[in-house]
């Protein structure tokens, strides 16, 4: 090992990096754009669903019901029609997502205790539909509860309607702010994708251009070459991660609860796993196109199964096992643990051990395959 | 017949816009290539040879002047030119994932060569290029020399009247280079084809029957190789001094020495009067205890002529700039 030779390769990497300003700017800007999108654009809590109403009763009770629906904030009443067919048509056209149909004589039925209200929800957007479905339920229940309370009061009974009260306390993120939840996952994802993509493209590009051959005739050892290539990518990756974290803290007010030092060094260890995977991918792909395709597949699986975008608890066991194969899966709980929960190594040692073992194994395999690829 | 001009340019100018302003790559080039000629455009790297070729072919838009092939204007009659001209770009640039045969067929089809003609012509060309045994090999897996031969065969498949080659022997071993030039020679003698070659190699320039010397975007000389060689002032002495650096400095300042070029540890000295200066040089050097091995007169080659012409151009430019 010669630090001088590693430095020579590293320097070359940096010069190339800074020469191509356009690419560098893109690399640094991309994560920030992504963060802004996640911060401002994406909200899975659907409310203010555009809703159309067909009220065939037109009495005080039905209007009170519609008011209760509108007051919930879940549904925005945007128009009135006169039949359930027209409601369905408006949903067909995509003008509204939900519709409420109240049949004639609502007040009379209410007195008899068999009033019917139907909600129609556009099921082609499942996420909105699920929210709307749940909301309709909640509203109906509340409304029914209110009426019942009145009834009970009329019966003269002095009873609490809610003898059992569930007080819910949400730890770490009491307001359920989405971005608090997103930031640790994004840091983990950026560390993984960037280190993987940068390493792979750098190596495949060099091979396509034949510059690896050029370097191999110098006295440099494969390990030194690899380290030299890895260092600039590692730094870019860490800069990106820190810019996301910084923006999250400064712009979105995400609190950093745990030890920054611990998080930083675990991030460094973690990004080596992406670099290792990058070496593996580059040794099995011949062209940039192939490398791109493989990376896309790997990232797709890692992101879907890793617990960043979708909950891991509901996955079938087989898929959970596949997810366990990706280092991202092990780092996400660490990132959430340190940033959001503020816990330390004493709570996280299991995940940290798993991560370290993984990184070591991946690096070992990738170094071996990288060496073989050169021979 | 030989008066028929195949390639003509007049005051051709090409400028590129870059971040640091406008760069003039070709600065008023006027040249003519006659039918059946092998024209060599020579010059150092960056002189503008490739740009000139691309502008003549209509691959780049020209900034000023005129250029045409076979009477077709480079800019307006681009497709007439492309039907009648073969071209090999500097990089080997045939699809590497097609086999030799598939490459041939691809270029034949794209030029609209009929099936019957293809059946006759492709085997002929493959044999001509010595590739008949490699028809199923992928283009990317050929050796450097074979790639160039395949490129030549592909560029001839539509029987062009003119072939333009941009440094066709770059990165090719000497044996393959010789073979390649023999192929070009056959094309000229057998088919009367006009050949336009860009090359930095002087030995290749000598195989052309007309040479244009390009330097910094300008054509500083164009004539037959013999005439160009004759442009060198005076006669040429070659010798190897026992001590190189002092001998070089001494001789450079002597009277009657018009120019000096160094070749390794050898000196090439142009003198006005051969016998007199030879004796003077030997005497002067002997005074300093320097001996001269193998001093003799040699025929100026393209290489000497080329360097001499560039030196002249440089000193001319220097005097121009100081005059301002």
């Amino acid at each position, binding site marked *: 090992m010669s630090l001088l030779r590693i430095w020579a390769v590293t320097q070359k990497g940096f010069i190339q990096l800074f020469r191509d300003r356009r690419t560098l700017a893109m690399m640094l800007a*991309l994560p920030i754009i992504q963060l802004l999108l996640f911060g401002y654009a994406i909200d899975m809590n659907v409310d203010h669903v*555009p809703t159309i109403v067909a009220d065939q009763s037109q009495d005080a009770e039905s209007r009170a019901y519609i008011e209760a629906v509108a007051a919930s904030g879940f549904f925005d009443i945007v128009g009135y029609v006169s039949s359930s067919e027209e409601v369905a048509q408006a949903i067909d056209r995509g003008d509204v997502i939900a519709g409420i149909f109240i049949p004639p004589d609502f007040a009379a039925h209410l007195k008899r205790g068999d009033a019917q209200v139907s909600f129609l929800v556009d099921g082609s957007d499942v996420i909105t539909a699920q929210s709307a479905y749940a909301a309709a339920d909640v509203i109906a229940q509340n409304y029914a509860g209110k009426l019942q309370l009145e009834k009970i009061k009329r019966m003269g009974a002095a009873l609490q309607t809610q003898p059992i009260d569930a007080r819910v306390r949400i730890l770490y993120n009491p307001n359920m702010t989405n971005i608090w939840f997103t930031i640790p996952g994004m840091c983990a994802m950026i560390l993984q994708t960037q280190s993987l993509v940068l390493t792979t*493209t750098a190596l495949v590009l060099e091979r396509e251009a034949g510059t690896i051959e050029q370097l191999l005739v110098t006295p440099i050892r494969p390990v030194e070459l690899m380290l030299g290539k890895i260092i600039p990518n590692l730094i870019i990756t860490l800069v990106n991660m820190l810019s996301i974290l910084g923006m999250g803290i400064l712009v979105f007010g995400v609190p950093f609860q745990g030890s920054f030092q611990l998080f930083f060094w675990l991030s460094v260890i973690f990004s080596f796993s992406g670099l290792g995977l990058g070496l593996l991918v580059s040794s099995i792909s011949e062209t940039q196109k192939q490398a791109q395709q493989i990376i896309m597949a790997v990232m797709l699986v890692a992101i879907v199964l890793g617990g960043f975008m979708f909950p891991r608890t509901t996955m079938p066991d087989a898929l959970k096992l596949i997810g366990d194969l990706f280092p991202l899966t092990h780092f996400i709980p660490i990132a959430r643990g340190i940033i959001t929960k503020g816990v330390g190594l004493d709570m996280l040692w299991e995940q940290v051990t798993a991560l370290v073992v993984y990184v070591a194994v991946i690096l070992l395999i990738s170094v071996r395959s990288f060496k073989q690829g050169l021979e | 017949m030989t008066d028929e001009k195949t390639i003509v340019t007049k005051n051709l100018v090409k400028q590129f816009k870059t971040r640091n302003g406008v760069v003039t790559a070709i600065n008023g080039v006027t040249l003519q290539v006659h039918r059946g000629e092998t024209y060599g455009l020579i010059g150092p790297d960056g002189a503008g040879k490739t740009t000139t070729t691309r502008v003549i072919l209509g691959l780049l838009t020209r900034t000023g002047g005129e250029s045409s092939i076979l009477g077709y204007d480079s800019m307006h009659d681009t497709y007439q030119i492309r039907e009648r001209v073969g071209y090999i770009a500097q990089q080997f640039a045939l699809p590497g994932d*097609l086999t030799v045969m598939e490459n041939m067929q691809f270029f034949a089809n794209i030029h609209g060569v009929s099936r019957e003609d293809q059946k006759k012509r492709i085997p002929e060309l493959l044999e001509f290029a010595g590739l008949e045994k490699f028809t199923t090999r992928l283009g990317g897996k050929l050796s450097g020399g074979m790639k160039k031969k395949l490129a030549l065969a592909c560029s001839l498949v539509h029987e062009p009247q003119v072939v333009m080659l941009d440094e066709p022997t770059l990165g090719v071993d000497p044996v393959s280079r010789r073979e390649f030039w023999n192929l070009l020679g056959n094309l000229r003698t057998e088919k009367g084809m006009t050949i336009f070659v860009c090359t930095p190699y002087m030995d290749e320039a000598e195989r052309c029957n007309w040479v244009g010397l390009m330097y910094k975007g300008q054509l500083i000389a164009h004539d037959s190789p013999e005439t160009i060689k004759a442009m060198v002032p005076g006669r040429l002495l070659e010798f190897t001094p026992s001590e190189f650096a002092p001998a070089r400095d001494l001789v450079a300042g002597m009277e009657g020495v018009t120019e000096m070029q160094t070749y390794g540890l050898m000196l090439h000295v142009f003198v006005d009067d051969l016998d007199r200066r030879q004796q003077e040089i030997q005497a002067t050097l002997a005074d300093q205890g320097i001996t001269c091995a193998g001093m003799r007169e040699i025929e100026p080659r393209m290489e000497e002529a080329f360097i001499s012409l560039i030196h002249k151009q440089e000193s001319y430019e220097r005097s121009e700039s100081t005059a301002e």
Partner: protein
Amino acid sequence: MQGESAMQSQAKRIYALMWKELIQILRDWRTLLMILGLPILEMFLFAYAVNMTIDHIPTVVADLSMGERSQTFLDAMQTSEFFDLELYTSSEQQVIQAIESGKAVAGIVIPPDFEAQIDRGSAQVLIIFDGSDAYTVQSGYRAASAIAQTQSMVVVAQKLQRAGAAEFSPPVFTSTRILYNPNMDGMIFMLPGVIGILLQMLTMNLTAMSVVREQELGILEQILVTPARPFDLIVGKMVPNILISVLDLAIILVVGIYWFKVPFQGSFLLFALLSLLFIISGLSMGVLISTIAKTQKEAQQITSVVLMLSMLLTGMMYPRSTMPPAVSAVGGLIPVTYYLRIIRGIMTKGIGLTFMWQDVLVLVIYGLIVIVAAAKLFKKRLD
């Protein structure tokens, strides 16, 4: 006569270019395999891995009352299937510790005097959630409140009955009907999204990468000096890639319809025509990108930005209705937004042109602009 032979030679040139492209595609079988395999992988992942309604939340319990009623309450929690009561501890601190170490995501603390509190009519159960796991909290929160309410009702009803009151039932029956997708099957929702995103990504990438690659290697220069016109080059490049894209689309559709049993409600012809238009405009977009990008790396970066915006802003997964107007407008600039609405309309809702002519119009106009721009800007020279 002259015109016909010009047409013939053009046809020949296009044929030559198409044939070359096709050989190249087939020869690079690794890439081909990935192109055809990726959609299947994506569909299986989304179908089996993505489930946003969370149940069986690992839960830790501290039942300090150990009474009959607390047991009833916990049973209700367990039978709801939302919560899996896995760990039992004896204090609130231990519950929090279990959540901190990640052993449980939710915790229930029942106070010591729970029975007495119920009799007094003001019992309080503490439910604690791990807020770093947003999905679980959102589902669990709702479930916990609902269970508490139901339990309250049971208690009230019991009391009322004991007081001799007549049985009563809720006065309003709400029926919610989910149109088009009554079981809220995620796959019915995801399939059009997968189609839209994959087609967008695939088409743009195919042409952008292959044109830029030929440019980088100098193959383009060699082909530009042939008599092939820009039109020939574009058609020759597009037709084989259209075939690949259509094949990809067919694979997704077949797997979606026959394996995942996603119903196809509307007109297949309309779907095919508009998809073809979308494919061609995607490929043209790739050609346009190739006129901007100088290297494959640059092309890749541009396509990945477009891809990211498409995934997040077009309504593929994330609802567009909750986006701020400015962000939503950015999404409106991406054609996938319209294509997605159209194919959801056709596949899921089964509606025709009369209901979505505006979206179709936008898609057609966009397609025409991109195709014409690609044909105009595609180089016949190197500068």
